């Protein structure tokens, strides 16, 4: 189960570069506030905690990554 998720995350990271350049189809593409960025965080979290817990941690991170967050360094 780990590999498909990791593949998906890597795929997202590749494709998002392009969507950010093309600015489609959404109205805006906002960059991540943290270091490491959410996609990298997700990969690290899944590697460290496994698919289930790692995915939850990644979702939590994305929710934290909002306009009211202070940003900064945040490792899983």
């Amino acid at each position, binding site marked *: 189960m780990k590999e498909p998720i990791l593949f998906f995350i890597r795929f997202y990271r590749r494709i998002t570069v392009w969507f950010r350049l093309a600015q489609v189809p959404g*109205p805006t593409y906002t960059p991540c506030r943290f270091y490491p960025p*959410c996609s990298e965080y997700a990969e690290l979290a899944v590697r460290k905690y496994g698919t289930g817990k790692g995915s939850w941690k990644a979702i939590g991170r994305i929710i934290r990554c909002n306009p009211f967050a202070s940003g900064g360094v945040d490792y899983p």
Partner: protein
Amino acid sequence: MVCCISNGMSTIFAFFKVILYIPLFNALIFISNFMPQHDLGLGIIVLTVVIRFLFFPLSIKSQRSQRALNAINPHIQAIKEKHKHDKTAQGAAMMQLYKEHNINPVAGCLPLLIQLPILIALYQVFVAGLNPQSLSLLYPFVPNPGSINPLFLGLISISSRNIFLALLAGVLQFVQAKQSMAYMKSAGGGSNPQMSALNTQMLYFFPVMIVVIGWNIQAGLILYWIATTLFSIGEQFYLKRSK
């Protein structure tokens, strides 16, 4: 268990419909009512432009942050390599770097995700707008046009496929992406050969994909795509001028 999940799902869909789908649909018909011959195609274009204007300040800031982030990418890679085994040092060096280059992205990843349902609702509305039955969803204060005019500019039926519009969308996408790439590179840092090879491939692949998809969908959706791409091209000019 299954019934609870399906109940939960239908609640979410109902919520989605009330909070996004119906308002957007009303906005589309409201705008179309002002267009000559109640032209739904023009309505789609105007609604798209309105939405893009709402997101304009955020979009400009995001693109500037993205450009700054791209520019320091070589430094980021260098720091990663240098502090390979020491995460604390890596983080500290990274924050220092962000500070030096004054990087503070405004919104983060959550807004990106929140956009997704808006986008889905918008696409559904552009399709549903062509179905006269959906006029029953109008709010009392939105005048019912009685029927829907799917002839864009009196020429192009937006309820069927249109190869010309699909090609136009592809070409515009290519122009936009070229501009955007030039803007991102203008701050330096584009020295990652692997990255630029990938981007060059995508530069040609993406517009082709849009033409292929556009070939197979209703022209109303392609009108959205053309309008949003044209808006992005305008945004690029703005970004370039206000450096």
